[in-house]
């Protein structure tokens, strides 16, 4: 089974689910109806096409980046970037700056990219409200309180681990035994072992003479 189909199906379901959590997203999505964004991420082997209607359809793009750019129309925007830049795309004001920094290749309608950035950047979701529809207000509140406590505990453990690793790297490593010192020590141990073996041999020879 092509993994790409599973990936796009999961991404599509997740995106549409998230958009339903924000009632205002329907208005922003309507502004994109009939338009499409082709996204090439350096980390992925193929591009993704996001088709906007009353929902978002996500499909693998069969064409390469140059092929898409060569055949682009007024309803399409094509972006090539990396995963690390994606979170910055939610701020529309950063788009031109990212293009100048060559962190982003953008072809076609810039306004589509801006509308997509607004669609996801202005998301105002309340997952607790959504969960309460299925399991009730109290259970949803408790689930989220527990999750928040777990998150804080996890952050504390991660913080301590990070501090420990930092301490090891910055404080203990410089005063630790270096590679050269270790080699020198090993050489000295070898010399001492040889001396002892010679000394033992000489003692045995003296014993035999007596």
């Amino acid at each position, binding site marked *: *089974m*092509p993994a*790409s*189909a*599973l990936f796009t*199906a999961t991404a599509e379901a997740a995106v549409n689910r998230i958009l339903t959590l924000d009632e205002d997203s329907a208005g922003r999505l309507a502004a994109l109806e*009939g338009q499409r964004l082709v996204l090439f991420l350096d980390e992925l082997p193929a591009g993704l096409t996001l088709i906007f209607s*009353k929902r978002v359809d996500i*499909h693998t793009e069969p064409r390469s980046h140059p092929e898409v750019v060569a055949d682009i129309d007024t*309803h399409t925007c094509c972006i090539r970037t990396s995963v690390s830049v994606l979170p910055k795309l939610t701020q529309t004001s950063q788009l031109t700056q990212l293009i100048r920094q060559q962190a982003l290749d953008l072809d076609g309608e810039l306004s589509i990219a801006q509308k997509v950035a607004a669609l996801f950047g202005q998301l105002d979701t309340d997952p607790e409200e959504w969960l309460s529809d299925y399991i009730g207000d109290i259970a949803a509140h408790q689930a989220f309180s527990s999750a928040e406590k777990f998150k804080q505990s996890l952050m504390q453990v991660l913080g301590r681990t990070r501090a420990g690793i930092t301490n090891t790297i910055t404080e203990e490593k410089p005063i630790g035994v270096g590679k050269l010192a270790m080699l020198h020590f090993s050489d000295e141990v070898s010399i001492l072992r040889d001396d002892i073996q010679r000394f033992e041999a000489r003692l045995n020879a003296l014993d035999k003479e007596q």
Partner: protein
Amino acid sequence: MSDSDTTSPAPENSPGQQTHFGFKQVDKSQKASLVANVFDSVAAKYDVMNDLMSLGVHRLWKRYTIDCSGVRAGHKVLDIAGGTGDLTAKFSRMVGPTGSVTLADINLSMLKVGRDKLRDKGLVSNIDYVQADAESLPFPDNTFDVVTMAFGLRNVTEKQNALDSIYRVLKPGGRLLVLEFSKPASEHLSKLYDIYSFHILPRMGQVVANDEESYRYLAESIRMHPDQETLKGMFEQAGFEQCDYSNLTGGIVALHRGYKF
């Protein structure tokens, strides 16, 4: 294996010529109505049974077909044997208001289920519904950019006629995608698949759709369908170029592609 087991030069669908309906031999003239009976019977539970039989994987097979279709805004797409409209729904959004999708099916029950489902989804503006026989498509030459046929070809009496007809209605540069059950690539998988198809599937059909026979026909018709290489040869015989296929889920299903230049 060819769909037609006879070598007689008699005209098509004339009485006396035999073809298979599952493992049974029937008159060619009877096959269409027998297949129609099957789909009349299963139409209402078709989507549920598809999800159940494939554990939802049919959605991924269809998604892969859509990914390979290269359908773009403004394209004219023909979805033959479109059944309950899974591919048509996606294509409708992909081609946008400047394109169009034609959902064609020989079976009126399936077409009605598909039309109701798509209308419930709010998809009305760019979809046409046509009751049509794949062997003689009622469209002018060079009409469509993309033609798809998902899980329909094995039910057609004369598959080569259907491929010829599709070739005729495709525009030069257009492509055909046929998603169909095929031959598993591994012997072990083939044995497991046989057990599933002939022992579990008909019982599921009985429990869910109250129709064991139709799902026994499904299993039998899959075994009688041409394997990957044979179907590729039939594509080439119809005039398609750059023909290839991709095995999905170990060859249980294959997606065949061909271009008209």
